């Protein structure tokens, strides 16, 4: 019996390790857009996956839990700092268009940023976004609506989107 359980745990851990290798960059980019901080994003990704590994069978939907945990860890860190780090402060090389995008996203409120990234970049429907950020689908749709208007003003104002 113990051997069967051990094998099951091993398989699950290997699955989470695979998930980590396959999805960490995507999650990191989403968290970078959310936080504006490459290091914070990397720490949140690693910590979320590590926690998932430690919790093992207690998680029924590991991937969604990991996304939720990563965003909450990042949110907690941002709150502890008291502000969103401006992307220009980050000593990290990235294409100009991506820099412009991150700066535009940084003008949004935290929940707006999370909603935009999770919905428009990752593709989660509003219902799933709500679960990840601790909100309601209705509120998420409002966040998206307000964000669209604000991003339109920021991005088009800078002549960045029409091209």
């Amino acid at each position, binding site marked *: 019996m113990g051997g069967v359980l051990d094998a099951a745990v091993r398989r699950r851990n290997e699955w989470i390790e695979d998930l980590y290798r396959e999805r960490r960059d995507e999650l990191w980019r989403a968290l970078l857009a959310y936080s504006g901080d490459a290091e914070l994003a990397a720490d949140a990704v*690693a910590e979320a996956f590590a926690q998932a590994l430690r919790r093992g069978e207690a998680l029924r939907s590991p991937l969604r839990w990991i996304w939720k945990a990563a965003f909450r860890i990042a949110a907690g860190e941002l709150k502890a700092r008291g502000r969103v780090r401006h992307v220009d402060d980050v000593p990290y090389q990235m294409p100009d268009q991506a820099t412009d995008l991150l700066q535009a996203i940084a003008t949004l409120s935290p929940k707006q940023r999370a909603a935009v990234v999770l919905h428009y*970049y990752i593709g989660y429907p509003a219902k799933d976004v709500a679960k990840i950020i601790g909100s309601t689908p209705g509120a998420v749709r409002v966040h998206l609506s307000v964000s669209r208007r604000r991003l339109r003003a920021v991005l088009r104002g800078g002549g960045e989107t029409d091209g």
Partner: protein
Amino acid sequence: MVDRELRRWLRALDSIEGPTDWPRLSKIPGKPLPTARRWRAFASAAVALALAGAGLTVAAVAFFGASETEPGGGPGTRNQQQAPIPCTPLEAEDASQIEFVTETKIGLWLFELLQETGAPEGWVVTPDHLAEGPGGFRLDLSQYEGRFEVGVGASRPDWINYPDPPAEPQLAERGDAALYGGSTGAEGHQSFFLVFPDLWIGVSVFPEGGLTWEDPGKEGIRRDAMVAWFHVVAEEIERTTPPACLTGSPGEEPALGLWERFGIAEGHEVGRYESLGAMARGAHAVVGAVVTGVDGDHIYEEDDPGSALRGIRVTLQATEVLKGDVGVGDAIPVVVGLAELDENVEERFAELVGDEGIFFLVPAGAPRPEFGIGGEAPEEWAGDWTLATSQGAVIDDRGTAVFATDIVDRGFPEDLDGMPFPEVRSRIRSAIDEDG
């Protein structure tokens, strides 16, 4: 900007190269202490307390591990039993872990309360396992005659249909806390939800022999016993729980507030203020008022074909004018924000504000150059007002800033929560007077 344009724009993120030095998962150090040590101590004490009478202390210690921090006192002391939920301090090193521990402590406290007040007759409760992820906790009776599961969380789980009408008639309401009776589950269980603004407690009942819910004369779980027990829980929570426990976990954004549950997110944000005084001075009008109507016919221009958001326009009747060119008794139309409307919107808005609130108002679409926001008032907003900001723009008659997450985060007005309404009003008046 339509959806596909925004999606295309966000693909620019793909061009950013990720880190090349990812650590191996197994090499990432865990952070079990000191938070987990405290949690283990607390759990061990609570469980031992509950099970001592049944001679099961040894089993409790075996389940949770030996306490590492109990040099004196020991588990099960009366003081520990009566202590309020230890919401703070908790290390902010790991937000999700803190949330998990905090909520688990609330779950254990409920467990203690269950032992102290007595569960409905015939129940025996024992801890079983931690449920899924942060916020889950269950007390499982499966090895006895039935199962009694308690879930505690700061976020509403998707199986609670709050704030929508519950599937079955609402059983009781207690101010902000509402007790809902859920539908009968697939396993023949009955679920109840005690919902606070930022905390839900769900209880599912799995009685042996099936439910005899509608007939309290038969054996089984009695509705009146369950409702009575819930009232005890609600009263104990109100009596012993620090407000912080019900408004989110330390180290992370406050949990979902009433305002967002109401379906409004940020509304027409025109600025943020660092303090109540700044908000009072920045507002064009500050009025004490009652809500006399909620109109959902104002359709907001929405460019997402999948959404059906509308603006809400409430009508206030001013009972007191603290600032501004508004008369007592005037009807004040206020564009509040976007929401998904349903037939209960009026009732829930009244619940949100209470009988009377203080509203901080600016003309709808008023330019706010100090916040870099220009005036773009649609024609139909002529003569309307809007909330001065999405943060703290309404203070209800319980002295709570109901739209206040950001201001509270910035250290203000923490001391306002729960303050008697006249004193809140006095402070606002002072802030306005200081401005001359």
